[in-house]
């Protein structure tokens, strides 16, 4: 009992000094527990090949999740990212395969187009004060529609080696470049959020917009920046996704928004804004990736996978919410 009390006190002291650890440590332990259970259920789960699979499969979600962490931290939401990917991949595919653009120009068009989509969202959210859920609900449909119109039902494939490089190349023949790219973006996002003034402004706006405004933060500009960055990262994710599939189709990215938002929330970022953990986002993306991959490797049926994914999502977020509400009492 004495030992238990002492552990509890140590935990309170630690999390009092580093509140982020109160999120990160339990999330990491949960991920570790999952790895242990799944490695018992499948002897191939911890094989190097499978670890690379997990890292590769989660890379695109991780890039998007970095942007979504910023968006949620600012008190907003962006459910149009899947459609931005759909539109951006049609820009890339048609430029390369139909219009004969040089590869780097096509990539610039893709990322630029996605960034413009983010700016379009930002304009309505910041200038016209339309709630983010409404704006991005509208652009979710609109961007996808543009993608269909622009690509006219075609599928383009067989892209130049320079475009495929990001998905095909492995450093030392082992580590995929796209994994390193996504980790680099994660590190940049973490640095931006924790070490820059603008990053702290994002959190301040999400925590209390009125107070942020009174303290001299340019709320509109900061909020607009967040959606533009989200669009930019969606553009990067599009290039990676298109290279990975070596195909461009208007339906690409369908449903990605829900997966990404779920990952970010599992990682400890609040849907209400003002609280985010970039490292938690990494763990959240990894946990969902590990679950999807590991349940398959363990031979769990598809229907049971859905049950477990939903249950674990509620469990992780539910325990955290319960603990936070307990602490506030």
């Amino acid at each position, binding site marked *: 009992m004495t030992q238990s009390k002492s552990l509890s006190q140590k935990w309170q002291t630690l999390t009092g000094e580093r509140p982020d650890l109160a999120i990160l440590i339990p999330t990491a332990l949960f991920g570790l527990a999952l790895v242990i259970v799944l490695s018992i259920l499948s002897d191939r789960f911890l094989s190097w090949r499978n670890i690379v699979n997990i890292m590769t499969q989660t890379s695109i979600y991780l890039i998007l999740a970095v942007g979504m962490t910023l968006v949620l931290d600012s008190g907003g939401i962006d459910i149009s990212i899947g459609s931005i990917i759909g539109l951006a991949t049609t820009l890339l595919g048609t430029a390369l395969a139909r219009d004969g653009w040089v590869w780097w120009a096509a990539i610039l068009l893709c990322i630029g187009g996605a960034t413009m989509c983010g700016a379009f969202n930002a304009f309505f959210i910041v200038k016209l004060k339309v709630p983010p859920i409404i704006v991005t609900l509208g652009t979710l449909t609109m961007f996808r529609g543009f993608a269909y119109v622009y690509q006219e*039902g075609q599928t383009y494939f067989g892209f130049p080696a320079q475009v495929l490089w990001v998905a095909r190349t492995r450093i030392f023949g082992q580590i995929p470049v796209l994994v390193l790219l996504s980790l680099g973006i994660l590190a940049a996002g973490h640095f931006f959020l924790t070490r820059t003034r603008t990053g702290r402004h994002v959190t301040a706006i999400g925590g209390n917009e009125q107070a942020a405004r009174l303290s001299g933060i340019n709320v509109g500009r900061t909020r607009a920046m967040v959606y533009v960055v989200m669009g930019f990262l969606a553009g990067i994710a599009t290039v990676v996704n298109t290279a*990975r599939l070596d195909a461009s189709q208007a339906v*690409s990215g369908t449903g990605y928004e829900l997966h990404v938002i779920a990952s970010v929330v599992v990682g400890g970022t609040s849907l209400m804004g003002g609280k985010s953990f970039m490292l938690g986002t990494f763990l959240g993306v990894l946990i969902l990736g590990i679950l999807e991959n590991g349940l398959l490797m363990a031979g769990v049926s598809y229907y049971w996978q859905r049950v477990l994914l939903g249950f674990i999502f509620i469990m992780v977020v539910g325990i955290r919410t319960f603990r936070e509400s307990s602490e506030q009492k």
Partner: protein
Amino acid sequence: MNSRRNGLVFGIGIFLLMVAAATMVFAAGQRQPAGARAVRIAYLPPNFEQADFYGQYFMGLTIGLEEQGIEYELVRRTPETHDNHAQQLAIVEDVVTMGVEYIVMAPTHYEGQQQAYRTINEAGVPLFIFNYSDPFPAEFGARAQSYVGYRHSDGGKAVADYLAANYPRGTKVAIIYGTPTQISYDRGAKELHIANGMDVIFEHYANWQRDQAYDAVQRLLTARPDVDVIIGCSSFMAMGAVRAAADAGMLDDVAVFGAGAILEELDSIVAGELTAAWYRDPVRMGQETARYIKLHLDGRANEIAESYNVPIVMIDSVEAIREHIAPVTYTAQGRTVP
């Protein structure tokens, strides 16, 4: 007090984790038991419902494997939506890592899954494609052992020929496509209908969804009650169209055509609701794939036909059902052929 709360949260967390772990173990135990020498086969359709094309193909595959005397373990996986290409690629990577010996796959998109084919080829796992009968073109940089299926354009042509033979020129036709893809256009066969003198007055994309087709047809029947024929480019969209026409009280005024002739469509034909649907025998396709796997296992891969096309027929009556539909379509559901 805080330590008691922390203890409570910790306890709840551990309990729920144990529940999740127990569920995983239980669910993992639900997989098909396999003997020591069972052949591990991955079955990867783009979606799966017991009564649809992929369910019937699966039935044919399992029947065929048993007929061939193959002891097998099937790993069945689908992406969340039939157009989630990235997820199907991830599934391919995972089953290759699992060490499956054969992959039977209907791609989410024929051209869009080239990377998946190449991944399978690089791993040296024999690939059997179904739902498409055309071999991969050289630019894919990949190959499959066989391609079992049919041409979607043959389905569209079957409906066009049927209309030309049974309806006068100038018949007003509406086409409900899935997504704006070549499969939709092949099945819709708009050019053939126009060439046959039909008047295509309405086209809509319902994303292969029953409810979206229902809504589209409901609007169509309000805007253009003079429509004579509605063509659904998939089974579920055709059934959505039938229901919308029935709810509007216009089932006697408009003919609805389906695609695939799944059990629900067959029931609807028997009930006099759906006019007709083209049919390609998925059970036969599954059995044929099983036969190819057996040939491969026996070291007779050179005898496998690269491309196998099942014929397409129009089902418009009980007699046609008795003549063409595989009886197992009914008996597997505990029913008798009408």
